[in-house]
């Protein structure tokens, strides 16, 4: 797998064409090529890569001349902050709105929520991002258009959400990234709620004369939450992937923007490094979701099934 990516990235083009000053002569190019180890045969380059990768070293970025892994990890907190903020918006808004639409499907509010969620599915994320910038930054002048704002250190990691200025920078990109999952969670919660309302245990709770708050808050919500948590967990991975788009629009200095910049200058170690790190993240997220799932729903606990 890594050989495939390595060979394929190699085939795209010679990064020397882009990295070296166009006025430099053959000697200089040859010297720079040798310094980066690009004059060796492909297979030898690959074995050097594997040898180093097994010790956690994915090579140095051609463009920045610093270790690729360090470069990506340095950008990772920004992406994770953005993804977490987006997911929080989606969950904290999506579940109540979906619940509302599920409890009162025929009300004006319920219909509006559903129409909004269909729109959220159909509108291309990147275009919505542009429109957000146009309305809130250009026309209204309320929020900044790009960057992360000032960061403060939280246990050694720079974060934006602790200052008001940072929050203002975070608002638009997070809302933009949240849109798709917000729509998804609204639909999921709504159909889960409608299904739960038909179940015998809800009718029984009604027959017992429980208050509507208790029926919805305990009996309905608990059963709606199981699939919602699973989807929210799995979607966290795709939010990280889609951050590539949002980060490019809002110039958010995360690892997605780094990937696009690296693709444009054929900075191979960073591209390969990004893929390795994101795939690892995905595996970790899926494992975590599986564990959370069995914790939430006793029926799928593997040990106790027997």
């Amino acid at each position: 797998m890594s050989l495939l990516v390595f060979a394929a990235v190699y085939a795209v083009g010679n990064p020397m064409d882009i990295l070296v000053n166009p006025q430099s002569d053959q000697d200089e190019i040859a010297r720079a090529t040798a310094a980066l180890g690009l004059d060796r045969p492909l297979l030898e380059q690959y074995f050097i890569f594997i040898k180093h990768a097994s010790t956690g070293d994915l090579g140095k970025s051609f463009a920045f001349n610093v270790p690729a892994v360090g470069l990506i990890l340095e950008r990772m907190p920004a992406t994770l902050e953005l993804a977490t903020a987006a997911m929080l918006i989606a969950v904290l808004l999506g579940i109540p709105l979906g619940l509302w639409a599920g409890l009162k499907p025929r009300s004006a509010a319920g219909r509006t929520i559903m129409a909004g969620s269909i729109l959220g599915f159909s509108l291309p994320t990147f275009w919505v991002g542009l429109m957000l910038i146009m309305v809130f930054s250009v026309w209204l002048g309320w929020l900044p258009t790009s960057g992360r704002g000032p960061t403060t250190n939280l246990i050694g990691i720079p974060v934006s959400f602790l200052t008001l200025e940072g929050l203002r920078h975070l608002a638009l990109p997070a809302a933009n990234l949240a849109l798709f999952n917000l729509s998804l969670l609204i639909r999921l919660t709504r159909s889960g709620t409608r299904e739960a309302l038909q179940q015998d245990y809800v009718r029984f709770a009604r027959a017992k004369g429980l208050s509507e708050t208790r029926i919805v808050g305990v009996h309905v919500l608990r059963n709606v939450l199981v699939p919602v948590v699973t989807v929210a967990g799995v979607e966290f991975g795709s939010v990280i992937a889609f951050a590539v788009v949002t980060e490019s629009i809002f110039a958010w200095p995360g690892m997605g923007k780094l990937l696009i910049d690296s693709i444009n200058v054929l900075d191979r170690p960073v591209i390969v490094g990004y893929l390795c790190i994101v795939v690892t993240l995905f595996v970790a997220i899926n494992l975590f979701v599986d564990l959370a799932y069995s914790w939430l729903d006793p029926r799928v606990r593997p040990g106790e099934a027997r």
Partner: protein
Amino acid sequence: MTPARRIAAEFATSRIALAGLALLALVLLAAALAPWISPQDPYDLARLDLLDSRLPPLARSAAGTLYWLGTDDQGRDMLSAILYGLRTSVAVGFASTALGLAIGVSLGLAAAWLGGWLDALLMRLADLQLSFPSILIALVLLAVLGQGLDKIVVALVAVQWAYYARTARAAALVERRKEYIDAAIALALSNARIIFRHLLPNCLPPLLVLATVQVAAAITLEATLSFLGLGLPITQPSLGLLISNGFNYLLSGHYWISVFPGIALVLAVVSINLVADRLRDVLDPHERHR
């Protein structure tokens, strides 16, 4: 009544779906006729006048022609650029879906019919691919392949095939246990004939719904990739590239350069989704009683 007629009649009972269909017809017509209905050939550089650059909508050029949707930074009529861009976007969306459908369905039917290691291999491959978001897979492929119309179609096909293969396999596994397949086997018909004349037509409904949704998804994905500068080259601008170009002028208040191509993109995607939604209601018996 033939099945096609029944489906058409049922489809027509939803007004929203009919509106979507009409809009889709309009979009397709505009895309098909772009070279003939555009006021200007947007890529004939000789016809562009830099004096006309970044004019707002409804402005008149120095020569007196009306720019309905304004002009871009090179004095190009936005309406013409959008019609041509729509043509590219729609063509890429439909072509990649058709190719992906052909490849995915063939593999899915083969997996269902032959079973064994081929089935296991194809389905694990599909599982693996579907566990990653499509944009990530497309990004990696384009990072590897480079730019170009053929390359983006390859990337979109690679992203889509797994959906079709899985759906076709699932439908075929259900159908092949039915009696008409036993009858066809008893008649000693060739495998190819059974698969293409008997099995495939009965697997079509879910595939048709999926393919419609996927056209919209492919158009959106292509626009996103082009926006990021990894899709189509500047010589074949799709809507995504037009929007990306307009982004540079958005902050200075020249909104029309990226807003109007965006609206064209949204109209195309929404109309396809409306039609797909209704098709699902009509074709999928599970959804019919909801």
